């Protein structure tokens, strides 16, 4: 598998949905496979909240396989022998793209909280501009799960003429009150950490690690299903007997602490605030009086594949169904299946055979329709 990557510097300032402007925006990306001569075989894979551009291969920071290495590679559903797969870090992120930890060109100091609030639409605009710098005017497909799925829907809304197919996994057209509530818990945990310093922790040479870890622990619970958590840990103890104190007696406690600790090594606390905010603000129907179908009016010729998972209570099937209903009403050709899995929200990251087969079949027929 041929891989590449780098940092694309956007040729123009990024005009944000909030009304602000970001100058000198950089977008970090990775590529897998080979771009064909007529540049028609590109697939953009959009990452979730804490994902990044390292879709496949080995992640340079964690040393572990990329977050979708099971799906992207030679002979896999996103077959890199055929497709040129691009992963890019969202703006507002912390893996090389411009975000709150980057230096503000106006001051030469880290943005911190002076970084403007960005949205899913802004992330997608930056992706489209990045692709232009790569000479790619049209994508065969946009694929993503969770927050990546929101970007997919936004692509279909904003740039339908630039995509042939769209795959939206375990996602939603808007955040529910519960989604916003969980994110707020995470943000409050970060902001309650004394080391957060009003967002200016970089200048002070500290990091709000405890707050960010708690945010991750709370969020991680929402990514798993109750049965999976019960099966994996139950009430199993770390050691023989209880400590009669507040150590991590239960294995599930130890597991969550580990998740939190591992996360702070690779993620920036302010980026977490900004990206969670972007997903909370996302609501495709808002500009159309609540009618999401109107957001897809120009996307009638895009082929959609929407997949949800039975035990995903973070982005439940009912939210995917809302998206499907809107797509049907808009007259878009839409496939939808609710995959039976006990893995909760994270199922989309795993090797779910039904999802794998559906994706393979969908992309093959979409490629045929696009005469690729």
């Amino acid at each position, binding site marked *: 598998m041929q891989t590449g990557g780098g940092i694309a510097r956007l040729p123009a300032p990024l005009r944000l949905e909030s009304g602000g402007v970001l100058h000198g925006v950089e977008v970090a990306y990775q590529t897998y496979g080979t771009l064909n001569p007529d540049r028609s075989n590109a697939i953009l894979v959009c990452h979730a909240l804490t994902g990044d551009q390292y879709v496949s291969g080995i992640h340079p920071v964690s040393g572990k396989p990329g977050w979708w290495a099971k799906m992207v590679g030679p002979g896999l559903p996103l077959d890199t022998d055929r497709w040129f797969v691009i992963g890019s870090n969202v703006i507002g992120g912390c893996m090389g793209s411009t975000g709150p930890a980057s230096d503000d060109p106006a001051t030469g100091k880290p943005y911190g909280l002076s970084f403007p609030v960005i949205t899913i639409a802004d992330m997608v605009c930056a992706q489209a501009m990045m692709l232009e710098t790569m000479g790619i005017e049209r994508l065969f497909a946009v694929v993503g799960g969770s927050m990546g799925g929101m970007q997919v829907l936004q692509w279909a809304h904003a740039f339908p003429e630039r995509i042939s197919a769209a795959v939206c996994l375990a996602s939603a057209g808007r955040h529910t009150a519960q989604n916003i509530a969980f994110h707020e818990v995470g943000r409050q945990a970060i902001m309650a950490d004394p080391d957060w310093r009003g967002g200016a922790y970089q200048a002070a040479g500290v990091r709000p690690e405890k707050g960010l870890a708690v945010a991750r622990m709370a969020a991680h619970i929402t990514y798993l299903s109750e049965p999976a958590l019960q099966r994996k840990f139950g009430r199993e103890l770390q050691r023989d007997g209880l400590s009669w104190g507040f150590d991590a007696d239960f294995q599930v406690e130890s597991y969550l602490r580990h998740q939190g600790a591992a996360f702070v090594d690779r993620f920036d606390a302010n980026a977490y605030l900004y990206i969670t905010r972007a997903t909370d603000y996302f609501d495709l129907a808002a500009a159309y009086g609540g009618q999401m179908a109107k957001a897809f009016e120009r996307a009638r010729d895009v*082929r959609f*594949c929407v997949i949800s998972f039975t035990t995903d209570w973070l982005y439940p099937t009912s939210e995917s169904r809302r998206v*499907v*209903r809107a797509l*049907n*009403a808009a*007259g878009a*050709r*839409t*496939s*939808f*299946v*609710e*995959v*039976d899995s006990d893995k909760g929200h994270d199922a989309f990251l795993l090797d779910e055979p*039904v999802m794998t*087969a*559906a994706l*393979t*079949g*969908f992309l*093959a*027929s979409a490629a*045929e329709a696009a005469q690729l």
Partner: protein
Amino acid sequence: MIQFKPTDRHDFDEILRLVRPGARVLDVACGEGVLLERLRAEKDVDGRGVEIGAAEVSACLAKGLAVMQGDAERDLAEFSDASFDYAILSQALQAMRNPRTVLEELLRLADRAIVSFPNFAHWRVRASLMVRGRMPETRALPEAWWATSNIHLCTLRDFTDLCQELGLRIEAAAALVQNRPARAMNALGPLENWRAEQAIFLLSRRTATHPIETEQRDLFA
């Protein structure tokens, strides 16, 4: 709801003959997409499906068919009026909780509907009831009464009455007996209600906006 092995689905042959090449088709209760695959391969249709079973939908998606997991009795409302040329409901009407509403929906979202179902007035069914005093277990209705998902079985007469009531035009009708080619029939004829083991109807709204093409008149001739 599945009455036959896919290879035994003679009604599929007839449905394929009815559908205009390149048409937009919605197959309601499409199962594993056997008919949709044939429509795609043999008629180059723009085919889509609705199916309630996740395993069946997964099989369809793996084949590259555009199928939505959904309940025909609730989710057809999502499709706009006249968004298809044909809506197909093969061997599933009798399993619907509200077959009347489903039939109306088919002809709202498509110009024409193709509906096939087992005729409960077929002589074998009548004989089973009359002679044996039991619910029929015939070739067209192979399952025991306690196992079947058929909850709204009807006869040809019942069906044509309903079409009349709903203001539907019967453009063509054919009788099917297993292992024999379809036979065009006058669905209102008194004998057909005895003879037809299964029936296929091509229906349109009386106020259809599109004229019926002449090539479609002698469908079963």
